[in-house]
């Protein structure tokens, strides 16, 4: 039997007995950022493909959520910082090796772009809206002229934002649960799925709703595949990763992960969406809210469980 004890005493706040420096702020931000990325990527993609007329909600209405989600997410990130007054240091440095630096700069681009995108559609969605000043109208004309470029920028940066929220965690070799490259695509798929669910929730057009139920269904399929793949990878890896997987396979996070994320967040909405695509009619509110809830729970559980998983020596 091997027993290890810290005999000198050590109870560093937020570090011992196991790491717990990241709380709801980071989890919430990863979710909001992912969902905003999903919404913007879908909007940009359909605009570029010229399907704006068919999917008006996805291209013009749902993106109004994105700036709100991003701003709330940024506030959460700011609350999380412990040396707050020095936050500007993020923007005096570009560090290519640090995913967090990538994220900070990506947010610097995508947040204004999401505001511009919403502003371009505000007169379409709210016909009575008046910009009041002529220069704002001039600005609107200017951005409308370059809308295709804007859409491409938005698509690329939205995908970077969606993937980076996962890579941020997977770059930490010290936390075996996070240290899997599956996390990037998984968070991207989950963000896109939440984004599609937002359109499903807001759309009043039957054809559009059907299309987004279909998209969501495909994304849920991809997520399930990635989750299975992640566990296969863990179980075929080193002892520390096998133990990380065990947190979800009998360990303390088993119930919350499989019930909230997989069953409530993926399987039930998938079933309901299949029913919707078939002959039954169900209120779309239910699968859409469940998908968004599952996406939020995924971030919370991965962030918290990851901090429990560790190297043993």
């Amino acid at each position, binding site marked *: 039997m091997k027993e*290890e004890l*810290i005999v000198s005493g050590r109870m*560093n706040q937020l570090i011992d007995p196991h790491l717990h420096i990241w709380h709801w702020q980071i989890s919430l931000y990863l979710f909001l950022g992912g969902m905003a990325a999903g919404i913007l990527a879908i909007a940009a993609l359909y605009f570029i493909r010229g399907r704006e007329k068919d999917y008006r909600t996805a291209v013009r209405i749902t993106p109004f959520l994105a700036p709100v989600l991003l701003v709330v997410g940024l506030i959460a990130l700011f609350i999380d*910082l412990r*040396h707050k007054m020095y936050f500007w240091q993020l923007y005096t440095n570009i560090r290519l090796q640090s995913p967090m*630096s990538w994220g900070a700069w990506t947010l610097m681009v995508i947040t204004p772009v999401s505001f511009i995108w919403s502003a371009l559609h505000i007169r379409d969605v709210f016909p009575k809206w008046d910009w009041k000043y002529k220069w704002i109208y001039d600005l609107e004309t200017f951005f409308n002229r370059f809308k295709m470029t804007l859409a491409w920028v938005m698509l690329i940066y939205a995908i970077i934002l969606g993937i980076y929220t996962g890579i941020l965690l997977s770059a930490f070799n010290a936390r075996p649960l996070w240290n899997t490259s599956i996390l990037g695509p998984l968070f991207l798929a989950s963000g896109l799925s939440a984004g599609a669910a937002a359109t499903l929730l807001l759309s009043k057009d039957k054809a559009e709703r059907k299309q987004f139920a279909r998209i969501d269904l495909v994304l849920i399929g991809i997520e399930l595949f990635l989750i299975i793949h992640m566990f296969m990878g863990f179980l075929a890896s080193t002892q520390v990763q096998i133990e990380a997987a065990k947190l979800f396979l009998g360990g303390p996070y088993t119930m919350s992960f499989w019930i909230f994320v997989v069953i409530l967040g993926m399987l039930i909405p998938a079933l309901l969406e299949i029913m919707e695509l078939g002959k039954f009619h169900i209120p779309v509110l239910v699968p859409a809210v469940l998908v968004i809830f599952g996406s939020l729970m995924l971030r919370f559980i991965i962030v918290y469980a990851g901090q429990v998983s560790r190297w043993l020596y």
Partner: protein
Amino acid sequence: MRYAMAVDTRKCVGCSDCVVACQTENNVPHGFCREWVVEVMDGTYPQLEMEIRSERCNHCVNAPCVRCCPTGASHIVEGGIVLVEHNDCIGCGACMASCPYDARYPHPSGYVDKCTFCAHRLKNGLSPACVAVCPTKCLYFGDLDDLNSDVSIVLKKRKSKTLIPEAGTNPQLYFLI
């Protein structure tokens, strides 16, 4: 220059003098520590084996904390010492999440703090506080590039190990076994 430390697990008695010396020398806030002592008991009575290790930041060559830092506050200086520039640190926590040794802690003032190998003492030709104070002289410190330094000599003579070398960090805290 490549600073490194060797800890003799056979000579260390676990008195924690190094821990207190570090806290005093570096004004470590109450309730925190930059270094600590681990006691490992292996086997069943009467066949017992014990290993005592005085642990601190490993000043890794491939330091994940430096890689993850979004502002460059965590950096490596001459001699391979990993330091945190307090006024560049935003307190995001990335470095603490990235350290497999959990060697960093959030200072109550907001920035992240850790072992510095007593860089301020090295400048004046002194050894780190923990090394200077050790009553059993089980801590060896010096420059690995200098073949006549204490640490080079003892690492040549004795068998040693590092902690979690499989994490790929290339730690520079050696344990003599």
